[in-house]
């Protein structure tokens, strides 16, 4: 009976107050050998297939990568000139913008967690500078954020978990809303858009940067179903995450580096938390739609 009471207390503390992060981190560190062991066969088989792959295959993949690298570099030139132009325009508008993201590549551990919670474990931790709340991307889009850090590993909550909400905007017109996880790996829902809002199937959703956790402008999902019923105040919208949540093996951890040391950059960082709540919220609101057109011009030639 003591155990039952203790469990219930722990449950309550963990669920309501999040007091147990320290304890959880310590225990996760203790159970690291088990995670490592479970992951071992897969790491070993990958290592084996890498060391025994033939010369021809390596040459071929090398050639492919070289071509891709060339193509990406060409894209990057275009992107750099657009970024410079964007910064110049922003200077004219006197608004600041955070650029210069530092990234670190981490690998997923092949470990299954609770099947009813969308989480993954990655092989980088506090030693590599990972922090709680850090955004995690894959090569295509936003994957989730770090929820628990130990020295060697960290746990990432995916954007499709039911407890995850992500501020997004529609790339086409800058319409801002919040994307909630559904618990299914292939669906996000947008429950807070009125029936008459301008959103279509196929619209791309990108992070809006509000909320201060995710850097703005990263792709999140594509709208793939809209149910508008005339008698309901909000439409029922489902979007499909662009990240390969169930397939990616490598993920990117992002540190946002503020490019300008100017004071207004910091004020825009946390729109809700500053003393001048109304003013800065307006500023952020103005920055939202303004951010969309340059990004759109950047995306269209590629598409």
């Amino acid at each position, binding site marked *: 009976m003591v*155990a039952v009471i203790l469990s219930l207390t722990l449950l309550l*503390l963990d669920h309501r107050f999040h007091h*147990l992060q320290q304890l959880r981190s310590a225990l996760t560190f203790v159970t690291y050998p088990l995670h490592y062991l479970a992951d071992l066969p*897969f790491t070993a088989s990958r290592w084996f297939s890498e060391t025994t792959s033939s010369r021809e295959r390596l040459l071929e993949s090398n050639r492919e990568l070289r071509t891709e690298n060339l193509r990406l570099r060409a894209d990057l030139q275009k992107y750099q000139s657009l970024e410079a132009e964007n910064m110049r325009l922003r200077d004219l508008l006197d608004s600041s913008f955070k650029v210069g993201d530092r990234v670190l590549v981490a690998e997923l551990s092949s470990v*299954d*967690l609770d099947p009813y919670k969308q989480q993954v474990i990655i092989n980088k931790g506090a030693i590599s500078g990972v922090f709680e709340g850090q955004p995690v991307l894959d090569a295509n889009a936003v994957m989730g954020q770090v929820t628990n850090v130990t020295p060697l590993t960290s746990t990432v909550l995916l954007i499709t978990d039911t407890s995850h909400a992500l501020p997004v905007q529609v790339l086409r017109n800058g319409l801002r809303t919040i994307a909630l996880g559904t618990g299914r790996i292939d669906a996000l829902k947008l429950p807070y858009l009125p029936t008459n809002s301008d959103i279509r199937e196929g619209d791309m959703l990108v992070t809006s940067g509000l909320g201060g956790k995710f850097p703005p402008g990263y792709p999140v999902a594509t709208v793939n179903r809209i149910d508008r019923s005339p008698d309901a105040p909000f439409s029922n919208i489902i979007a499909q995450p662009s990240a390969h949540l169930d397939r990616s093996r490598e993920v990117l951890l992002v540190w946002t580096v503020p490019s300008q040391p100017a004071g207004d950059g910091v004020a825009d960082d946390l729109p809700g938390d500053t003393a001048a709540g109304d003013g800065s919220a307006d500023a952020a609101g103005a920055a939202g739609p303004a951010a969309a057109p340059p990004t759109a011009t950047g995306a269209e030639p590629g598409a």
Partner: protein
Amino acid sequence: MSAGGHGRAVIVVTLCVAMLLVILPMPEWARPFRPPWVTLVLVYWVIALPHCVGVASGFAAGIVLDVLTGTLLGQHALGLSVVAFIAIQLHQRIRVFPFWQQSLGILALLIVEHLFGLWITGATRGIAPPLEYWAGPLLGALLWPWVFVTLRKTRRHFKVS
């Protein structure tokens, strides 16, 4: 009586193997059908050595499992403590049952444990798991005879009693 540190080590190692089986990667479609290995192993030890493995061990194993699988701290701990408690109450009866009757008893225990899991997920996250959730107890009950025989062999081999 327990054979000191040696016997305890065997119990801990079997529980660790069970936990390894729980987090070992499986294809996405097979994940809901994963048998509750830790519960099976724990119940075996409780029935075999009730004076040595009990509610406290269940609680400890549950906490470790919570941390391993990233659930709320206490979710598995609650389920496993309750299961250990019931198993202690019934261990003399379960011991003398034939295998198929034991499996039925285990099924009931596993369902109780899953019911706690269901309540906690429902209360904290507001989602009801799909019907496959209940495949776990069924598979666990089907696997029980093999788990039982394997663990009994292990126990006799290492002379844990």
